[in-house]
Every structure is written in C-alpha cells, then in structure tokens.
C-alpha cells in the first residue's frame, strides 16, 4: 500500500513538472503557427527591416523596423539609467549601509517591485511627461526618454536585489584579505568584490533588461505610440509590446494584420529568450 502511495505521488509530481514544459511548447507552437503565416505576405527580411508599419492601409505595409528600434531605444535608455543606479544601490546596501538603513532600503526596493506597471505608467503620465515636455521645450512629453525613465524604475528592483545577492555571497575572506593588505574600503569593493561578483551582477543586469523589454503597459501610456523610426530619444516611439497590446483588439482574426502581430510576438519571444539564456549562462559561470 505504501509503495502504491509513493508511486502515485511520484507520478503526480512528474505530471506537474511536465505540465509547465508542455504549456510552453504549446504556446510556442501556437505562436509559430499564427505568426509564420505573415511570411506568405511579406518576406522575413522585409518584415524585420521594412521601414513602415501601416497594417490597415491597402495593401498593408508590415515592416516592424520602427517598432524594433522603438523597443531598443527605450530599453537602451532604461539600461543606461538603471544599471549605474541599480548596481550602485546594490553596493551601498551590501557593503556600506548601516544595518538599519539597509533594512529600510531593502523593504523600499521590494515595494518598488510591487507597484503594478499600469500605476507606474499612470504616475509617469501625470508627473514625468509634463516635466520632460517643459525641460526640453517639446511639443509633447510622450517620448522615448519618458518611457526609459519609467522603465528604469521597473528594472531597478531586479537589478538591485540580484546584484546585492551576488555581492553578499562573496566569501567574507576575500574582503578581509584585501583589507588586511591595507586596501581602502572602496579599493576592496572595486578591485576585489565587484570582479568576484561580476557574473552575478551581469545576470542581474540581463534580467533587469529582460523585464524592460517585455514591459507593455507603462510604455504604451507614456511613449507616444508613434510607429515611426525615431530620430532622437526625445521623439515619440512605439515598442513591439505596445503595438501588440494596442492593435490586437481591432485586428480581424485571420487577416494579415493579425498574423503580423503574432509574428511580432515571435520576435519578442526570441529576444526575451536570448536575454534569459545569456543571464543563465552568467549565473552558471558563477557556480
């Protein structure tokens, strides 16, 4: 009887384990089936590098280069803002902050991660967008820059908490060894701790960026949604994610537009997958 119980439980757990893989495969297959159909209408090259996105003109123009560049621009901006601040914050928490401040900061970071992205987008729209508009004297504050700043807030919790873990898990002996040689605290952090934690910190950055690239709500609300190739970070842009979210509701099922949106989904999937795999490689290198 006990053997039988064991058997049942084992198989149940097996099914749970397989289920997640099964669903991923299912989603991926569905995505492929719907998305690849677009290539009957436009070639892969024209799809990826076409310069105009007019999905409901006749004939539809389905080039997603403006969207890809929009996503990249916003992500790059967010990375430039969030990486130095995030890593700096991690160093401060792990190494410098007194115990009390450390706890307050950690709680604050967790709270930041808990804010729903639509709320961040909403706050950005009301506060940040007018500021960007006034500071740069623009006709509108709905720009890639606004999106970057808001997304930086979203990447920061991921970057800070994983980078802080990486710094914290360095053997204490490294630090003592360097200090005992007369290195200053900062020299120890810069020359010993950061190199030793580099793989974990890189993984933190990649995962933070992964989060930014997949983010939809906030960018849709504050980047202006103009599907044109941006000429500066102060221009309105539209990202891959926002395009799908905004247009899926009005695309006729089975139309070229519909297939094209699924194909954008594939592109996003590939980008996120690549980022996660890279982050994973860095994390494994550490172990």
């Amino acid at each position, binding site marked *: 009887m006990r053997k039988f119980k064991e058997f049942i439980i084992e198989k149940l757990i097996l099914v749970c384990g397989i289920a997640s893989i099964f669903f991923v495969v299912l989603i991926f297959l569905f995505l492929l089936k719907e998305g690849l159909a677009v290539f009957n209408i436009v070639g892969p090259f024209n799809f990826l590098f076409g310069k105009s996105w007019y999905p409901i003109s006749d004939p539809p123009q389905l080039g997603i280069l403006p969207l890809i560049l929009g996503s990249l621009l916003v992500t790059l901006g967010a990375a430039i803002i969030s990486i130095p601040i995030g890593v700096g914050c991690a160093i401060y928490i792990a190494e410098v902050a*007194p*115990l009390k401040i450390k706890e307050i900061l950690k709680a604050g970071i967790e709270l930041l991660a808990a804010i729903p992205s639509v709320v961040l987008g909403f706050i950005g729209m009301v506060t940040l967008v007018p500021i960007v508009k006034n500071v740069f004297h623009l006709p509108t504050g709905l720009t890639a820059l606004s999106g970057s700043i808001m997304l930086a807030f979203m990447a920061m919790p991921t970057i800070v908490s994983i980078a802080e873990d990486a710094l914290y898990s360095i*053997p204490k*002996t*490294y*630090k*003592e*060894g*360097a*200090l*005992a*040689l*007369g*290195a*200053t605290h900062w*020299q120890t952090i810069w*020359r*010993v701790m950061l*190199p*030793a934690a580099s793989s974990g910190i890189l993984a933190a950055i990649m995962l933070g960026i992964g989060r930014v690239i997949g983010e939809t709500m906030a960018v849709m609300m504050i980047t202006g949604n103009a599907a044109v190739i941006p000429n500066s970070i102060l221009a309105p842009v539209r990202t891959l994610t926002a395009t799908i979210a905004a247009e899926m509701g009005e695309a006729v099922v089975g139309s070229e537009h519909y297939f094209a949106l699924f194909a954008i989904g594939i592109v996003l999937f590939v980008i996120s997958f690549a980022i996660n795999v890279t982050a994973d490689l860095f994390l494994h290198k550490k172990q």
Partner: protein
Amino acid sequence: MVTFDIKKLNVWFDSTQALKSVTMQILPNEILSIIGPSNSGKTTFLRMLNRLNDLNTRFKMNGDVLFDGQDIRKVDVELLRRKVGMVFALPLPLPLSIFDNVAYGMKMAGVNNRKRLAQVVENALKQAYLWEEVKDRMGESAFKLSGGQQQRLCIARTLAVEPEVILFDEPCSGLDPISTAKIEDAMVKLKEKYTIVLVTNNVKQAARVGDRTAFFLNGELIELDKTEKIFTVPQDNRTDGYIRGKFG
C-alpha cells in the same frame, strides 16, 4: 623599544567578553606564539593588532593598544594594515594571477612602476620560499597552486607591502606536514626582518618556532614567557594542563 604595547585591553562582541584585561608587550624581531583552546580569544587578540575587528559591527573595546608608541585607534587604518600584515588560516588568494596577487597590495598603495613591481614581487616570493616553484608561471591563476603553495603566496603577498609585523592566524591548519615545515622555515628566516605573531592550535608548532609563548584561556592571558620555560617549567597549572593535552 617594543613593537606592540597592550594595556588592559578588554574586548566585547555585544555582551560577550572576548578579551579580559590583557596586558602584554610584543618585542621587535621575535616570534611570539599564542596558544590556547578554541574560544580563548587568540584570534580576537590577533585581529586587534591590525584593527580587523573593526569590521564587526558588534565589536567594542577599551584599554590601549600602542603600535610603535602610537595608539592604533589614532593612526590611519590602511597605513596600519600595511605595516601590520596578516596571513589567514585558509589560504585565500584573490581571483587574480600569481603575479597580481603578490603585486596587489602595492598597487593599492599606488605603486605602478612595472620594473619596481616585478622586483618586489620576485623578492617577496623568494622570502616566502615560493619563487622557484612559480617563476615560470606568474601569469597563471593563483587558484591553480596547491594549498601549501597558495599559503606561501599569501605570505609573499603580505611581504610585498613591506610590513613591520606579520600576523599569522593558524597558517598551517589546513596543510600537510611538508608544507607546514616550509612555512615554519620561512617564519624563522623572516623574523630577522620582521616581528611575527603566530596564533596556532598546534602546541608543538609553538614549541618549534616561538621565541616567547603566550597562553590564553577564556579571554585571559594566563602566562607569557620564554618558550623553553613555558614548555618545561610553566608557572600556572592551567598552562601545564593545556600543553600536556589534558584539556582544550
């Protein structure tokens, strides 16, 4: 002339007292061995001398520790740690090449002249009896060395910053007898130029290399005397009991 003059030193970690009114002197160019069972405060005492206890947020002290006549709390801590080098129980090479490990301390202190770096590194490795074994592989990762070699690398690294004092914290606890012998040889040679404080769990090691030996028990300094005397006619029963292996 004394190197360290310690007066009525008390140390606490939170409410636990780790050292109780320790008064002693450390003389230039001697090897002072410190023995005692675990939890007797030996390592705490050693880490007092280069202020490594400061890293512990629960650390509190009173009393005085004078290094070359100066209160160690008033001198620049980085300078103090360069003058009072430390070799740890476990060899802990930094994740760098052999050369860079030895050159690390000097680079931190701002020495960048390559020729001078190379010369100091070679000298330090020779003093640590390691030069012959590594001279052809200076660029390799320090992790490729054996445990004993790594520990001698750490000694070389400490020597390279030209300290006055070297603190050894159970330097041979993880090493085989041959590596241990090499490190002991190095210590005896090094005392010509440096003052050495050796914390060891190995009573015989204290007897072999120490000029004077101090016995700690429960945070108190029980006895400090010439090594021969400690090991032949100790004044205190507890010292006698410990070196005969009755407890500890």
